[in-house]
């Protein structure tokens, strides 16, 4: 299986380490995103490989759900076989996986595509080539749960009465709910839009 498991040395040690699944058919982009995120990451080359890794492809899975540790999925949009959008739909359509935030990347600034992905539940949409500033925003979002717990808790309480755990200590029982994540994403609609519209 063409899975590059990069820097996941401590991922088996428990629920503390944040782990990302990156999906992109370009080997160059997989290498760059791994270096950009600087975090425990598994990179796969296609949507179907991603589903195998996540254990919902129905045929064979590499890990049982109990061992699965994915806190964020970042995927390219245009891929042969299964697009990032189709992968997003499959993830959001799965009861055990739909709470995992999904970020879409694309080299094409097509508003209809962006809207469709966001409507389907994507947390963010990044223009390629992905830059450090995009990753800073993602990292803020990933870490905010740990540093800004009070604020995040308040936001969640208006939409969801339960007190979910922070992103960093995101364990399988209380993954970050999509509602609270959308609430955070809506905090920065201007920067996201302006970055998107400013691209050529």
């Amino acid at each position, binding site marked *: 299986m063409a899975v590059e498991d990069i820097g996941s040395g401590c991922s088996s040690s428990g629920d503390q380490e944040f782990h990302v699944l990156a999906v992109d*058919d*370009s*080997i*160059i*982009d997989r*290498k*760059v995103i791994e*270096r*950009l995120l600087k975090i425990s990451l598994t990179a796969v080359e296609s949507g179907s490989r991603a589903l195998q890794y996540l254990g919902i492809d129905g045929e064979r899975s590499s890990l049982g759900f109990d061992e699965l540790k994915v806190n964020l999925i970042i995927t390219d949009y*245009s891929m*042969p076989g299964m697009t990032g959008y189709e992968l997003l739909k499959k993830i959001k359509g799965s009861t055990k996986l739909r709470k995992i935030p999904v970020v879409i990347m694309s*080299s094409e600034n097509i508003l209809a595509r962006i809207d469709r992905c966001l409507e389907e539940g994507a947390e963010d949409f990044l223009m*390629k*080539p992905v*830059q*450090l500033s995009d990753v800073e925003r993602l990292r803020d979002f990933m870490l905010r749960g740990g540093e800004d717990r009070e604020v995040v808790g308040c936001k969640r309480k208006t939409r969801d009465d339960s007190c979910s755990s922070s992103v960093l200590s995101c364990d399988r029982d209380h993954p970050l709910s999509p509602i609270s994540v959308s609430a955070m994403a809506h905090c920065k609609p201007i920067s996201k839009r302006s970055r998107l519209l400013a691209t050529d």
Partner: protein
Amino acid sequence: MQRQLANMKQTLFDQGYLDEQFIQLEELQDDANPNFVEEVVTLYYRDSARLIQNIEQALEKSPLDFSKLECLMHQFKGSSSSIGAKRVKSECTQFKEHCRVGNADGCKRTFQQLKKEYATLRKKVEVYFQFARQIGPVEKACRSK
């Protein structure tokens, strides 16, 4: 020596061979990943060789499968964009346009131009890397942007 290296890089930018994405890659290079840019560029060469061969084969077919060509070129454009290969990327864009309107001659012409730009970029980048290697770790300490 450092100024020479900085000048080389500036020339590559002024002449439009590279864009700011290349700088992004350099910013990701550090002591733990000292050869990151070269590694990415090497992957790019390998991937490009594959794509160029596939495109060449596809261009020999008759009639041309424009949608397949556009798909291959989309990949080439993507990887060129990821390393900051500005001129190559621009040729890719032109090629895709020709595909969109079904202009076979345009595709073939642009592809020849693309291969030239790609070959030139490779040569210039190799010279740059060789020079950077000669300078060694000192360059990393005072890298100018």
